[in-house]
């Protein structure tokens, strides 16, 4: 335990600067890898790798899973998984720099830690299901497809905002 008071976190960067940098990262993703950014696809591959390790025959039987990890196919040996690893590393390094790496539970002031834990799990599960339904998450569909002007990505993006705003009022106690 350190005796001296930990230094306060550095402030976040200007959102427009962050956005411009993100746009440049996205552009580099296109020209270096031929595809945009993403996370949910890689999480799925990790998911399937776990199932494949526990019950390989199940993976071979379900068409949706077999496509990614059937037989000898290694679901982890795919660029998105490496991108996910990079995202974790980049986030961690940036967090170190910003003095934000800290075990904590972020929640609204009016809910208990238990409620926040349950909502995080529930929200994640809903999000994961929706992300596969939409064939991409906010980064893969909205951001990457949106910048390439894909019609489906723009429709998707407005749907995400619509869904969240529609429910925001009912959950105001959770966050405020």
């Amino acid at each position, binding site marked *: 335990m350190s005796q001296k008071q930990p230094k306060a976190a550095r402030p*976040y*960067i200007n959102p*427009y600067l*962050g*956005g411009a940098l993100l746009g*440049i*990262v*996205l*552009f*580099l993703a296109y020209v*270096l*890898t*031929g*595809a945009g*950014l*993403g996370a*949910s*696809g890689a999480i*799925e591959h990790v*998911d399937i790798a776990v*199932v494949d390790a526990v019950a390989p025959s199940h993976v071979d039987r379900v068409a949706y899973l077999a496509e990614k990890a059937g037989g000898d196919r290694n679901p982890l040996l795919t660029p998105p998984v490496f*991108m996910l*690893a*990079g995202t*974790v*590393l*980049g*986030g961690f*390094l*940036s967090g170190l720099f910003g003095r934000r790496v800290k*075990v904590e539970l972020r929640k609204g002031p009016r809910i208990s830690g238990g409620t*926040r834990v349950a909502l*995080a*799990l*529930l*929200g*994640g599960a*809903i*999000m994961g299901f*929706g992300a*596969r339904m*939409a064939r991409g998450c*906010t980064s*893969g*569909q909205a*951001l990457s*497809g949106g*910048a*390439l*002007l*894909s*019609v489906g990505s723009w429709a*998707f993006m407005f*749907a*995400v905002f619509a*869904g*969240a705003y529609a*429910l925001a009022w009912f*959950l105001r106690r959770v*966050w405020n």
Partner: protein
Amino acid sequence: MLPLNLAESLGGWAPYAASMLVGIGFGAVLEQSGFGDSRKLAAQFYLKDLTVLKVMFTAIVVAAALMALFSALGLVDMQRVFVPPTFLVPGIVGGLVMGVGFIVGGFCPGTSVVSASTLKLDGILFALGVAVGIGVFGETVHLFEDFWYSSSLGRFVLPELLGLPTGGVVLAVVLMALGMFVAAEVAEAVIGRSEPMRLRTWLPRRGVRLAASGALVALAAATLVIGDPTPEERWERVSAEAGAALTGRDAFVDPREVAELAEDTSVYTRFIDVRSETDYNLFHLYGAVRRPVSELSDPAFLRELGGVPTNTVIFVVSNDETEATEGWKRLVAHGVPNVYIVEGGMNGWLKRFAPPPCLATPIPDWQSREDEELAFVFRLAVGDCCNTARPEPPGKKLPGDCFLAVNPGANAQSATRAAEARPEEFPHKVKLRKKAAVKGGCG
């Protein structure tokens, strides 16, 4: 030309390394922007802190403007960039579901990963929840598979939907985003910090912002001025590489090989007939679609070709080779893979697989006819309703007893003939090139 083919130039490991580097940038930028904090993200939906909107739309317009400009300048081949295919209704339903997940849990998948990387417990739990949700989807998708594959529009972009040049759409998106940023500043001031609404807060006050906004508008305007490349310009850009297939005649396929492939169950064949309607009606290859060269750049048609199975071979055919070569150039310039030309055209075909004389006869002045003139006189229009349109490939051999089994009506004589047929050798040229299976991180 971009995107780089790292696997080819540096080796198989390079795409993974590149993805990892991009990922590091992605994670770092998200974290620096505050996307690792669920409360900051959720504040977006109470209009107190619109960081999410600002970061996302800035990123979209910056990347869109850069990509559109690079594409207009011929530096990026958009055909080789993965554009998420549109499945409209599942996309919208999935988006609504994700919106619910966002406000309940406070993250989207990417941001939860970043949050988890800085050891935020809610981020770690959310990411675990995402893994569970994805798993549930994988196990249950067979129950609603028809829905999941419904309203498929393939690779479909806004310029096609709106009928506008890419530069115009990018300019509109940039202007829309700038408008949203002004609105976001107002919302943050009035709702977030309870400041009185003043005109001063509406507009960017600092020179940097004005300059950056101006630069974006200028990028988009430049793209609009340069315009989308014409088919001829597209061909110019790829001619150095693709032209060799014409001069080396690798793109021209012997009719016998074409006939073989048409019967081959392991590949799909498509015939694009670029001739006049009259000639097409008189006779065309089995299943051929007629489409004049000028209509080959039609976005809807290219989208259709983009959606064919990867083991599809496309043949362009005209009466001779001149028109078909023009058509071939167009399709190749648009990045359509596995396109070939029927060697000798329709005339060569009819010579090889001669129609019965009662149906068609060669014109007498065969030698002196003009280029692209049909060299046969048909007594009636048969379309593709004769064996010549779908001949038995010369190399096809069935053992005698098997031939009888599949053709119960055939007599023993033809069975022997089929068994004994010794086809002459001819060069095979079609090499099925699978499209690089580039998929988005979420694909």
